[in-house]
């Protein structure tokens, strides 16, 4: 039982006092900030991740992962209590969760959300442990051509599946790739797009892009919205769900987990799509679909399970292939790179403590969340009342200090303002920033792989189609395109008639 041994090893890593402490801090901070209105998991991670720089790799990633699922959990709390999803993944939870809160059943809704998340988290963790090693072993066969094709597939999926416009999604990916290229070219040593600024020869910093796009731009968008929130606070009396609640939500939980685990692995879909998909599924198979949207507990259990399962399984491609499936995973990947770890299948062999420790810590973190959240709901509710006008300057403070601390250079801070302005304009023009971040992270790698692949093949581009694994990725890329474009074209034709 290799896996058992590995998991035991992982738990010994994760149960060290230091790692346990960072896991706890991560989960706590993540929930704390995730609960604050208008701040989703992405911003939370982007903002907090400079403070993990000074830590060794394992606790740093454990803490970041903790921040991630803590923030996600916090997002569902806000969805239920104030009908304000921290991010798209918990938007579905608003539908029934908020209705339950209005009916005075906020307690059970929160409890079911916690239980569903925990259940899905356990399954997700197990899946990573099971699927990780064989996948990584397979990925060891990959050469430059395979990696290029795989990245092409990932970026295509990210562009196509992003909510919003597909063509703009592609354009954003390309824009991200271009931003990723800024800096010194590893092959020739030539500084590209540095505009004579010495700091730019190291490239545009990772935190600069992430914070600029997801914190600064987001704040300006939020400032336009009206601040009108109804908080259901006085009505949280009983936390415990009834036996019927548990029975009603057990199967939706299982189905949600399955759907979420599947979508989590796909690039670009992540938690958001999975929670929508599973909600629709539940509504379809329910005996009485009209209850949905009126406070059906299944409508909380299934999406919450799905988004948590997806959040976990998203780690699979990131840890085994070095390909992020979502913007959040791109952040995690960036954190790994900053820690000096080259992402890819060799991570499992070169840093087994990181891989297995991280997996084990996710399970522990999920357990901590359940224990932490249910008794602390009162505290979170009070946090919800913090007005946005206190929040956003504080977010800017953390972001700017974080950016400055990476290189102790004001240039990074200035750049972040520039990226923020660009990000705001893009968001207003309805261009999703997430594909840009994926492109930015993969840009330098992709260039490196395409160069290497073509060097080996002596400039023959058919190399991407003659090697079987690479060909499979290319076919998959094409399939994704066809599947997504075909309905759009048909719809256009119908409109034309």
């Amino acid at each position, binding site marked *: 039982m290799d896996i058992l041994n590995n998991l035991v090893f992982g738990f010994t890593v994760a149960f060290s006092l230091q790692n346990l402490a960072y896991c706890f801090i991560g989960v706590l901070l993540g929930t704390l900030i995730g609960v604050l209105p208008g701040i989703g998991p992405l911003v939370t991670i982007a903002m907090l991740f400079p403070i993990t720089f000074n830590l060794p790799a394992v606790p740093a990633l454990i803490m970041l992962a903790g921040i991630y699922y803590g923030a996600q959990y916090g997002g569902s709390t806000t969805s239920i209590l104030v009908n304000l999803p921290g991010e798209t993944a918990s938007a579905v939870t608003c539908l029934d969760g908020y209705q339950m809160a209005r009916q005075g059943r906020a307690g059970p809704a929160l409890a079911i959300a916690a239980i569903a998340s925990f259940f899905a988290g356990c399954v997700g963790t197990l899946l990573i442990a099971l699927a990780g090693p064989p996948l990584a072993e397979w990925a060891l066969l990959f050469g430059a051509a395979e990696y290029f094709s795989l990245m092409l597939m990932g970026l295509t999926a990210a562009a196509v599946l992003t909510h919003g416009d597909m063509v703009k999604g592609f354009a954003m990916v*390309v824009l991200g790739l271009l931003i990723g290229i800024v800096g010194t070219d590893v092959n020739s040593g030539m500084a590209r797009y540095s505009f004579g600024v010495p700091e730019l020869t190291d490239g545009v910093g990772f935190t600069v892009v992430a914070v600029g796009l997801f914190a600064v731009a987001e704040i300006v968008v939020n400032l336009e919205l009206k601040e009108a929130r109804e908080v259901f606070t006085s009505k949280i009396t009983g936390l415990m769900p009834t036996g019927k609640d548990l029975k009603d939500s057990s199967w939706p939980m299982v189905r949600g987990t399955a759907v979420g685990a599947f979508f989590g692995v796909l690039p670009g879909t992540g938690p958001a799509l999975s929670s929508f998909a599973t909600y629709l599924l539940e509504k379809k198979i329910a005996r009485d679909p009209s209850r949905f949207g009126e406070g059906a507990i299944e409508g909380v259990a299934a999406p919450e399970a799905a988004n948590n399962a997806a959040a976990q399984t998203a780690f699979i491609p990131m840890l085994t292939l070095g390909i992020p499936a979502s913007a959040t995973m791109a952040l995690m990947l960036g954190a790994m790179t900053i820690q000096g770890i080259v992402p890819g299948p060799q991570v499992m062999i070169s840093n087994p403590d990181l891989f297995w420790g991280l997996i084990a810590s996710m399970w522990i973190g999920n357990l901590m969340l359940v224990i932490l959240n249910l008794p602390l709901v009162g505290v979170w509710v009070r946090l919800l009342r913090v007005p946005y006008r206190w929040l956003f300057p504080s977010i800017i403070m953390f972001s700017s200090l974080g950016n400055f601390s990476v290189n102790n250079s004001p240039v990074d801070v200035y750049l972040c303002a520039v990226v923020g302005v660009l990000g705001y304009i893009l968001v207003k023009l309805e261009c999703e920033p997430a594909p840009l971040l994926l492109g930015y992270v993969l840009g330098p790698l992709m260039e490196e792989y395409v160069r290497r692949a*073509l060097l080996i093949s*002596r400039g023959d581009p058919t190399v991407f189609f003659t090697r079987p694994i690479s060909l499979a990725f290319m076919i998959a890329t094409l399939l994704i395109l066809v599947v997504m474009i075909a309905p759009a074209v048909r719809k256009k034709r119908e409109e034309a008639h």
Partner: protein
Amino acid sequence: MKFDLRNNKDFLAGLLFILIGGLAVVIARDYPMGSAMRMGPGYFPTILGSILCLFGVYVMVRGIVSGERVKGEWGWKPLALIALSIVLFGFLIDRLGMIPALVAMFFVSAFAGREFRFKEVLLLAVLMSAFAAGVFVYGLKLPYPLFGSF
């Protein structure tokens, strides 16, 4: 409304893509192209810039056809204030120290909000700067002077 290009969502998005893509291609002309077999530093960026331009043209034309407007108003004022507050922070931190930079940042960014209450902002600035000093300077031991230049 169809010809109001200044607020045409896709026209502007396309224009932005074309400008950035075009700039990338133009600048990349200074970098050696190399061949497909031995790509120079200019190869990949030139291709990417061209692709971005193509997407830009498509989005732009689509915008002219559909004429869809940007939703809501442009928040130029909050955007400018937020950006300014960040730049100010970067400019002041190694000249006056961390605390003055943060206080300046809080006051400028708070103007971007819908309401500005002087006492509240002052309190927030003081509390959060103290917190930041505790976390970053004493906790994480970053070598930033609280007051004064580097």
